[in-house]
């Protein structure tokens, strides 16, 4: 039995490019990776939003209304439903004049039991040090 920890670090804002959404969809794919692994082996995915990437976490996104696309917000909520560890950098939120009330924190309508964690960058840095591999989006 072995575990490989992957850290998905999102640094770019949403919708301008495909990157943030691909970060989330690839992280979510950690839930079905077992078909490629031996019994007992797992891949975990932690997600961190830093820099301009914190803008992906704004709530009440209108992607369906404006683009007929699933919103990045809905992908974050799906990540919470799957119990992924989702971190948002507090200092970068501050830089944009944002706080926890401006971003998606939970997803009760999805049945999610875990919440987004707004943390100082030092905690994100610590998470990254614990990962086997980092993927920057």
């Amino acid at each position, binding site marked *: 039995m072995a575990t490989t920890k*992957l850290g998905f670090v999102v640094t770019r804002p949403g919708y301008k490019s495909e990157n943030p959404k691909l970060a989330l969809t690839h992280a979510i*794919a950690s839930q079905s990776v077992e078909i*490629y692994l031996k019994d007992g*082996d797992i*891949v975990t995915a932690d997600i961190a939003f830093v820099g301009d990437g914190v803008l992906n976490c704004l709530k009440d996104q209108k992607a369906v209304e404006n683009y007929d696309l699933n919103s990045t917000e809905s992908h974050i909520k799906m990540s919470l439903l799957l119990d992924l560890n989702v971190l948002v950098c507090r200092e970068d939120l501050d830089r944009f004049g944002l706080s926890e009330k401006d971003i998606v924190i939970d997803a009760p309508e999805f049945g999610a039991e875990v919440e987004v964690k707004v943390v100082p960058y030092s905690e994100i840095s610590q998470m990254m040090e614990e990962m086997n591999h980092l*993927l920057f989006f």
Partner: protein
Amino acid sequence: MGKLTIGCFASLVGSTNLDFAVKLSAAAMEKGHKVDLWVSGNGTMISIKDQRAFKDYSSLEKPLKELMAKGLNVTACEACAESRGYHADHTLEGVKRFSMDWYLGSAFDADRLLHIGGE
């Protein structure tokens, strides 16, 4: 010898990131390492066969075929490819198409993972 997993999300035309990924794959294989190359997002453009080679645009079909013949494992994100109209019947022979979990599965036992994001 080790295993290198490369994920490249950048377009074939419009960037040279895929050129770099293929050259790095060749260098690693030359040293005896195993290489998995995952392409997702715009990177799936590399999976289309019969692309015409111009000197002003990247063209990697020839080196990719040569490397796959030597054991390079290339897989494209199926959803990313389909969303762009890159269908299975127009995929370069030897390139596999799977869902995103394939990339994570490859990363599981990789000694190094090099992720090259998209534009």
